[in-house]
């Protein structure tokens, strides 16, 4: 099986769907001739022509809006927002339109669109190339929100998202594009090729939306995480020796409640990790649900480890980033309680 980086896996997913479904079109800022600032769409315009893969004006709101119109027409648009930090101008179109079309038209119109966007920090991108805005989507009824942590999932989830009839927000942790990242910037970068989950089958396969994956089994404490934090949590478990069960949620909406409940009922402890700002982050929803569903199984308060409630700073990147040290402390604290 081929070993792909996350960028290649994402490209492969689009390639695969464009080849088998004429309705799939791909566009966004710099995605056409150039192939995207992260190279995710490289070669697609050459292969499928300018009518199916093209550059868009720098107008995120318009990008989402025309995707909605195309989706309602019957196409399967995959739109790229260059950085998740730049999705806000398109937020109204996502929240007021894409998410509601089906509901308000009684099913007559809907928006089968995928909005891809690189998210997260770790590349010295400063406050406008580092954000993780997932909670701003999980609060909106009618949207699905997905975030892969490895090439295998990235391809399978993106294919599932393109095939899905609902609007899907597809967040791509940019720090994982070219290799897994355990949160140790001082260590040399590792390429994906050395990671088992870079084995990506050729052709179509789907990873269903709404199914979590247990990345590491354990009995001591459940770690709920996604994206880059899966690798950070793995490192923290390794480094602390805590017998952590690491659950990679993969899809935030719909959420795999069964997997969460099963793990927390087993361990009785829970640590939630995300890179986004703590307050009202998706970790709050997870904490609330764990409390509601597993209250009597809990032996310690649910811990949240997250980005601080500040904009993402440039130079203090590694003080902001919730790395293995902070996650490790939370694991130990949860075990002590």
């Amino acid at each position, binding site marked *: 099986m081929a070993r792909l980086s996350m960028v290649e896996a994402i490209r492969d997913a689009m390639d695969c769907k464009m080849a088998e479904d004429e309705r799939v*079109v791909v566009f966004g800022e710099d995605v056409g001739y150039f192939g995207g600032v992260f190279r995710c769409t490289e070669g697609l315009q050459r292969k499928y022509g300018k*009518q*199916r893969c093209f550059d*868009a*004006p720098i*107008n995120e*709101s*318009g990008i989402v*809006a*025309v*995707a*909605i*119109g*195309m989706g*309602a*027409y*019957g*196409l399967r648009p995959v739109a790229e927002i260059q950085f998740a930090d730049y999705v806000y*101008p398109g937020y*109204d*179109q996502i929240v*007021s*339109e894409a998410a509601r*079309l*089906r*509901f*308000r*038209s*009684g*099913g*007559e*119109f*809907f928006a089968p669109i995928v909005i891809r966007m690189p998210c997260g920090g770790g590349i010295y991108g400063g406050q406008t190339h580092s954000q993780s805005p997932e909670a701003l989507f999980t609060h909106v*009824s*009618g949207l*699905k929100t997905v975030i892969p942590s490895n090439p295998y999932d990235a391809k399978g989830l993106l294919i599932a998202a393109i095939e*899905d*009839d*609902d609007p899907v927000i597809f967040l791509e942790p940019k720090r994982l594009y070219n290799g897994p990242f355990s949160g140790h910037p001082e260590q040399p970068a590792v390429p994906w090729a050395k990671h088992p989950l870079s084995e990506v089958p050729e052709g179509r396969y789907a990873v269903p939306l*709404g199914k979590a994956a247990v990345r590491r089994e354990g009995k001591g404490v459940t770690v709920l995480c996604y994206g880059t934090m899966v690798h950070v949590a793995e490192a923290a478990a390794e480094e602390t020796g805590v017998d952590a069960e690491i659950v990679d949620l993969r899809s935030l*909406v*719909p*959420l795999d*409640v069964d997997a969460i409940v099963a793990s927390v009922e087993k361990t009785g402890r829970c640590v939630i990790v995300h890179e986004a700002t703590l307050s009202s982050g998706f970790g709050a929803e997870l904490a609330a649900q764990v409390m509601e569903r597993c209250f009597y199984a809990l032996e310690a308060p649910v811990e949240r480890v997250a980005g601080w409630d500040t904009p993402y700073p440039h130079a203090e990147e590694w003080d902001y980033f919730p790395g293995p040290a902070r996650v490790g402390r939370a694991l130990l604290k949860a075990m002590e309680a």
Partner: protein
Amino acid sequence: MTTRLSLHVPEPTVRPGGKPDFSHVDVPEAGEAPRPPIDVPPGEIRDFAYSMIRVLDDSGEAVGDWAGELTSEQLRTGLRDMMLTRAFDARMLMSQRQGKTSFYIASLGEEAVACAHRKALAPGDMCFPTYRQQGLLIAYGWPLVDMMNSIFSNAKDRLRGRQLPGLYSAREAGFFTVSGNLGTQYPQAVGWAMASAIRGDDKIASAWIGDGSTAETDFHSALVFASVYRPPVILNIVNNQWAISSYQGIAGGESAKFAARAHGFGIASLRVDGNDYLAVYAASKWAADRARADLGPTLIEWVTYRAGAHSTSDDPSKYRPKDEQAAWPLGDPIARLKAHLIRIGAWSEERMRQMQAEVDAEVLEAAKQAEAHGTLHDGPKPSTASMFEDVYKEMPRHLREQRQQLGY
């Protein structure tokens, strides 16, 4: 020497108590505007944005290059569509006052724009309307009772009680689900037209926005994407002079014509007498022909006047003279078409009275049927459990749990 700066805040010429004054509205003679070929380069017709295409003159005659598009039979149908729309609005306003629904928005005085435009479109074309284009549905021949079911949010409402009255959805009739958010659908229409172009189809889109809403940022998105990809879309601006309480000057209409917004994008643009059924049809047809011939987008500013309140929540006497409509220089679209038909010998006062009775009866009959399926607070309702449907294609677990919590 320094000037002390000051903020310019536009103000309409008159306010309540004042004498209506439209002397600032330039009304060119009917028939004056030439009719360019549909493949005219947009840059060559820039002056059209500063003038106005008019066909019906004061005496009711149809004159000039844009005349002669419609038979008297078609014109009589147009008259009926407008009268039916007006009767429908009147009845629904009454229903709202009777508490049968929560809210209503009429199109009084603007009926020609939607009714005549619809006739220039083909099956499969898609309109992205605002809440004031019920005329599109009515001129299409969509069942009034279906519209009313939705206004009453009753058991037969295809939208299952979810939408405010007037925010219809009728895919079959080329009528996109109306948003309560202003402007959002304008660029969606461009996307729809782009899809048609990508697929090599022959369908066109028609986007709608009000003068006030041209200020919204979505207006810009639509023009940018239309300018870049040149998809088959008609960009309609209904300039009915007012937003809610603010007049078109607060949207920039004091400084320039809305039609001129297209120029910065190289988009062809027309400015048209929106109370002239013949002019609306002819200009719409021109734009539709251009779009279908792959000649790209056309923006059209329809100049009209909102004769009624903004909605049932509004009282226009608070911000404009009560009798302003009577002074509006472009008159009333129904009265003008009627006069034309009479002048060409295709109509009479007597037939007018008959038709009025006919449309009133049709509306009454539809209302009876619709009311039998329930009104907002009385009679059959959409099922409560349906509230959890259509949020997603398939109901996810958390919504199933919530539906159960509600007892379904």
